[in-house]
């Protein structure tokens, strides 16, 4: 991972504000190096990279819109349409900016692939939830077929 756990925020050494201790999501400040990111808008971001990313996207998108509007309103036969086209060009600018940012700031996610499904564990989980052999027998045939295809039929059933 090219992410840098060295990026620190100036607040890490500060004593905690007692007014914020009610926040259950706030983790102890003892291990900030292991937790370099913050949750913004439901996902983890590096705050510096976020600042860079917003600045870059706005710096590409907004001038793209403003310049193309100024140019188009002089060039087009129907200047009324200039705003609309400029909007589209501005949108393209936003997307291009984001594409560059996606390269500069890699996702702060660690993708782990689950191993092969453990049939025994899945069967045990099904039993725990109440999917007993008796319940299985009471199911309509199409649902039993689905379970057989998944290897989730109770043991004697699976052999047949």
């Amino acid at each position: 991972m090219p992410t840098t756990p060295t990026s620190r925020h100036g607040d890490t050494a500060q004593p905690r504000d007692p007014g914020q201790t009610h926040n259950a999501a706030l983790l102890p400040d003892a291990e900030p190096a292991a937790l370099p990111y913050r949750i913004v808008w439901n996902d983890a971001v590096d705050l510096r990279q976020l600042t860079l990313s917003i600045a870059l996207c706005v710096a590409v998108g907004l001038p793209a819109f403003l310049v193309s509007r100024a140019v188009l309103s002089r060039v087009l036969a129907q200047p009324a349409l200039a705003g609309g086209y400029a909007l589209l060009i501005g949108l393209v600018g936003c997307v291009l900016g984001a594409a560059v940012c996606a390269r500069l700031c890699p996702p702060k996610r660690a993708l782990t692939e689950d191993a092969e499904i453990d049939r025994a564990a899945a069967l045990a989980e099904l039993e725990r939830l109440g999917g007993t052999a008796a319940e299985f027998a009471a199911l309509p045939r199409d649902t039993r077929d689905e379970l057989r295809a998944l290897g989730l039929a109770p043991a004697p059933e699976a052999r047949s």
Partner: protein
Amino acid sequence: MIVNGLVWAVGMGLLGAVVFAAIGLVSGTDETATLAPITLLVVLLGTPPAGVLTFFIAGAVSKHMTHAIPTTLLGIPGDTTAVPLLDDATALRRLGAPHIALRKALAGGLLAALIAVPISVGIAALLAPLAGPLKLAAPFVFLVAAVFVGYFSPGRWASVLAIAPFALLVAALNALAGAALGKPLSISFFLGIAIGPLVVDLLLATSRSGRDTLPRSGPRTVWLAPDVGVGGRWFPNPLTILSRRQAVTTAVVAGVTSTTFMLSPVAATVLAGEIVGARIRHPYRRLSTLMAVKNGTTESTYLAETLIPLVAFGLPLSPVAAGPAAALFNAPPVYTVNAPGGGVHNLHSLLQTWQFLVYGLLGVLIAGLVAYPFAMRYARAASAWASRTISHEALIGAFAALIAVVSWYEGGLLGLTISVTIGAVGGLANRVLGMTSGVQFMAYYVAVLSVPLLPAS
């Protein structure tokens, strides 16, 4: 004329389906914050009404399909409307059947969407005679609707009480914009409300004392479900993916929920899930049925909330209509609910009832032909690619820039400042008081339609 409309509808429907199928893959993309501004853009660019409607319907249905992918395969809600499905999806995954969760959800969604369009257009046709008196009473109707939506938001009475200050703030800023620019603003308010939660998070991140309210995190571990194979058919028939009982239950629930338009999709989904889930004993059968029924309910409520107010009244009288679908009702200077001489000028007045039915179904079919087979076949590869490639920083950057461009388009620097102001206040009200964006959208209409009557009464 009709051929022209059809060409636009097919073209824009395809565009909406592709764009929103892609956006749906990125987990955490809020529906209001994505559908609303992009639909607005399509309206402002001068797309004919048929194209606008098909774009929105195809986009919404596609997004609901692809956002089921992170929900079922990554265990992350693809959207706020996917949150009610998460527990059942996780349980099915523990049974080693994440692909079943996805397939049932997709099949249920497509089935429900096909049922919801004709039923909600039919209900709208029945309600249409009420439109005349309702339009005359619009300022009061919106006040009542705002109170109703506020009461059913997490904030309850706080949300209801906060309608007054919020509406006054909007009215005051709008008067300021009117004085400075010679025209009132609407898009800037609307975008501000849509991105409120993001604005608040960004403000907190810049605050030395507020930063610690944002939870710390390490790299987020995302578990990708193993590949169990989804089958080879290009277009897996939803009626063979669902058992007969599941198809019937999904269809009935979709039919019933298509007649309502004031409940939020999330509330309707939770309610439908409780009612259906309590009647099924076997866990696998219950979970797989719930995936179909819940995703179907989200779809049917969403479409009904958009189409019923649009076809019957032309006024955005539901949380979805006032939020994600708002550009279909109000997108000055193209569409307005406040036309000179009273009345509305938007899709309601520009399309006939039969056109809503045809283009609505067309939108669902296009989403069914684009997003449905894509999600069935490439779900695993696509979600792995999206979570490896698209960083959250880039996503936030793109939306911040999009808001800046669109609000500047409407009102220059003042428009942008108003967006940020409303975003900050609205986002705080959302987080602290539980005043959701749906209440705030309603409060905006109270400000525009009801507040001007204050001195007179």
